[in-house]
């Protein structure tokens, strides 16, 4: 059991790192992008551009919130 917990903790630390909100935000934005692609109403180029903007917004929100926490 300890081995399994250690195994998952290792991969969590390796991939997600110390701010899980980045990972959650990226997955959420891509999931929305996936729904838009499956829906088929918007052109692929527009979905790509919108998803790219969403990913950059997630990154900036994480960085600004980390900066605000560090200043406190």
């Amino acid at each position, binding site marked *: 059991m300890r081995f399994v917990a250690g195994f998952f903790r290792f991969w969590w630390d*390796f*991939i*997600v*790192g*110390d*701010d899980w909100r*980045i*990972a959650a935000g*990226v*997955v959420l934005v*891509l999931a929305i*992008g*996936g*729904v838009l*692609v*499956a829906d*088929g109403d918007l052109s*692929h*180029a527009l*979905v*790509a*551009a919108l*998803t*790219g903007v969403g*990913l*950059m917004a*997630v*990154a*900036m929100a*994480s*960085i*600004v919130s*980390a*900066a605000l926490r*560090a*200043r406190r």
Partner: protein
Amino acid sequence: MTGHAVGVIAATLLASGVEFVEALTIVLAMGTTRGWRSTWFGVGAALVALAAITAVAGYALERWLPEALLQLVVGTLLLIFGLQWLRKAILRAAGLKALHDEEETYREEVAAAERAGDERRLGLDWFAFVVSFKGVFLEGLEIVFIVITFGVNGGSIPLAVIGAALGGVVVLGAGLALHRPLARVPENTIKFAVGLLLSTFGTFWSVEGLGWFGPGDSSLHWPGGDAAILVLLALWATLAWAAVRLLSVQPREREAA
């Protein structure tokens, strides 16, 4: 050589260079304090484990996943990974997070090595073996991840391997020549550049992989095709630069903190 190929080599060279610097610090601390024999065994065992993981993971990814799903999975992982690097590099550049200090890490590793007992297993100094194995394995795993991701997604594993190998040769050559940790490497600047490259390629590939949700499972296309990579890089760089400018702690504020 295309811009794409240069990007793959540059990203793997820089990313692996940073990881090699960190692994070198641990190996030097163990080798000089506890002796080189057990340290080299630890390094060798880690390299064998890394080679096995690379072979299995690279083969499995390329063989079993459709192209669009592969782009989505590894692009997402690369993006999350790259954004962690970029976030830390921005916070360090803005003075909100302490810079990584290789000499301090080296001193801590040496102190730990001197405090550790003399347990011997399989004829080896077990502390030196385990610490050097873990150091090389963990830093190496990040290199493997980047090489596989860039290699498989960019369809150029040899280029990714060349980039990583060049990074290793430069860092290990310098380390062997100096016989001390590479404290003068502008680590945060390199991590900043690598974070930008990983975020750029991660965004490009993960979004292309969204085509897996559509009919036909084919990759989604960015406006402008591969040229979108340069636009994404410019956008990430502008956002990162703006974040450092806006969030930078003023010297007076830094003294008060």
